[in-house]
């Protein structure tokens, strides 16, 4: 593969910052950040209720754990928006116009990635302010693990954005791209949720037919650890909870590698499919 040129990075930067400026100029980003913060407030209240009821709770860190669910909200939004990006530009003819200029597949895909990651930065910035504030208001005190938790969210979001760009690069229309992405995210979340539920459920109480599906769910969960952005996020949170620095570093490296691979595939997809609608 040829090396990344300086001008490609410069153009990617321009595409990214312009797209980012357009994103923060609209209300969507703030609405998503608000939804995320509402989710975290609900999680915080749940923890609070448990502590009041039982006198104690045994979790890794109530404040940092409250940031995990909003991180999924951010990743979902960014994945869907990313899945729109290339397909919409292609169907509207913007992609073709851009490619008459100095833009090529690499700079374009990188630009889209930069745009979404900057948007992610804004959402996580709000989380970094609001979630600790909610924690203090709830009397849970401050957490020293908020920044490492947000870094986990950033790694997961990076994987989600890359997946969105890859799906978008292969789709002919924005509608089909979003449909595929929404379906894919739903399946991945269902697998992850089913695995999480199975972890604590008494399997003897399950219907027999479902019990026969368990190995399938378990195997899908194992695959999901490698292909799902939420799998990477869960792995990062586990590493953080156990204070396992090597595992945490591995999570960061693998989520970046996952993003890089998907972006390379997206570039190849655009080359194969062309820029015309």
């Amino acid at each position, binding site marked *: 593969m040829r090396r990344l040129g300086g001008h490609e990075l410069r153009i990617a930067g321009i595409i990214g910052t312009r797209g980012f400026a357009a994103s923060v100029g609209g*209300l969507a980003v703030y609405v998503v950040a608000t939804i995320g913060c509402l989710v975290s407030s609900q999680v915080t*209240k749940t923890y609070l209720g448990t502590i*009041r009821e039982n*006198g104690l709770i045994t*979790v890794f860190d109530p404040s940092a754990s409250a940031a995990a669910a909003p991180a999924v909200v951010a990743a979902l939004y960014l994945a869907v928006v990313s899945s729109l990006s290339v397909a919409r530009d292609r169907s509207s003819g913007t992609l073709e116009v851009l490619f008459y200029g100095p833009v090529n597949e690499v700079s374009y895909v990188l630009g889209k990635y930069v745009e979404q990651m900057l948007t992610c930065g804004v959402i996580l910035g709000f989380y970094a302010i609001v979630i600790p504030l909610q924690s203090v208001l709830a009397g849970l005190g401050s957490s020293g693990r908020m920044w490492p938790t947000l870094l986990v969210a950033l790694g997961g979001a990076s994987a989600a954005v890359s997946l969105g760009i890859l799906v978008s690069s292969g789709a002919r229309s924005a509608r089909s791209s979003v449909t595929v992405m929404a379906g894919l995210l739903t399946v991945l979340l269902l697998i992850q949720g089913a*695995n999480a539920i199975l972890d604590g459920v008494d399997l003897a109480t399950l219907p027999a037919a479902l019990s026969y599906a368990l190995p399938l769910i378990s195997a899908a969960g194992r695959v999901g650890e490698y292909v799902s952005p939420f799998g990477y996020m869960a792995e990062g949170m586990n590493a953080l909870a156990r204070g396992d620095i090597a595992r945490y570093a591995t999570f960061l490296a693998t989520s970046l590698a996952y993003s890089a691979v998907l972006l390379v595939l997206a570039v190849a997809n655009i080359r194969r499919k062309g820029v015309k609608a």
Partner: protein
Amino acid sequence: MTCAGIGGRRTLMALIVLIFCSIVVGLSTCNAAVAPSGSSQGILTNNADIEGADGEVPVVAQEQLVYGLTLFDGRQYQWTFCPQDIKTAYVISDTRNAILVRRAKVYFWPITGEYVSDWEDATEMADLAELSMEVLAGSKLVATLRPQKYAMMYRSGYMGPATEILLDEAAQTEFDRYMIRLEEYGAAISRHYQAYMEYTKAISDFIDNPTAFDGKIPKEPAEPTPPEVCLSQVYEAFIVDLPEGSYRIRLKDGAGNVVPGSEKAVVAFSAIGRGIGYQIIPEDKWTCPSRSDDTSQNITALKDQVIYVKPYEEVSFNRHHYAKLTELHRPAGGRGMENQTLWTYVRPLGATDEMLSVEVVSGKDVAGTAVEKPYHVEQTSGSSLGYNIIEFSPETCPESSPDFTAFKIEMPQNPGRYRLQIVNASGQVLDDSTRELRIVQGTDSSWIQAAAFIPLFVGAFMVISRRRKCGMRPHVDS
């Protein structure tokens, strides 16, 4: 719409229908396959019987070669068995496990989803002494085992767990000693019975004529204590002690032929991790303890709370393998647990000779220390519900033994972050015993949700100021 678009949509629809059909077919197949293979021959259900007033569901058991497994689960020995339909057994690596071979009647009981064997009436293999068990790793012969004498040891009495297997001469010698101890105990019981008869007679005499005893009440004879360490009978079985790995076992008769139906796969698995876990008993909910199994489960508690902690030495295993180890006769056991980990408590800490204490530490200062004590739970009298947990004392408590023993921790007054850790007699903190202890106030404020709208306010401000800057005020067309 283009032809390609229509074609794509049709393909997508076809794909969805295909997936849906696969799920339906798959689930119906699963339902049909709920009873394991062979069970259709093994179970006869008679509708007339079920409908009748004296309805019973007859089961037809098949006599087959069965492995009776006495397996170490990390804490004690448990018994399960491996019928013909189950092809793989699971053992913990580097532990002694006993495998008995019997011909027993086996049937599948669908109500509880498990195989049941008539082990009481199982017959020994006629030529057991001539049998040998081969253990193979791949095609390589690892060991050839002969039946060995063994006995189970119950260090805390018969009601306690079997924690050790004694082999060969040691098993026989210890068993003989145990029988002597039992005989001595029996003799002591007879003597005690005799002495007690004399005592009751003396008491009657005392009541009739106290002056004859110089006012001294006859003393009740002390009851002899039974042997604390108990042993099972000496049995004969194949003893396997395998390093981690996958193996095959099979039986060979005296002529060197493989016994039909004796071949099984054996997975010897090891512990994933070791650590110290806590059982945490809140004072106001002593029957609902929480667990903190590893260092990722820190404790967040309200200030002024009183908790009792019971630390345990623990081991983690693959949950699927562990479930198969403990309930191999239940085919659904462990299904879907392949990716999960399970912590199991091995033994309580603090019951050892070493003097341990639990410390609550803030920075470098020790905010509180607790040592292990026995406690008694006293129900409050009258119609009011509730109880008090008081320190156990044989003199003052009505019960002969405490309800639990634990380290009592009173939470610090000041909210903040502390450390909970176990310290030994020389002041060293035990590995994996540290948990973050976060003391909170826990105030349910409506501001928690209000704070969530900060991003929306910022966004609205940004959008409005941007529009003002660009001179693009929104207006409504009439």
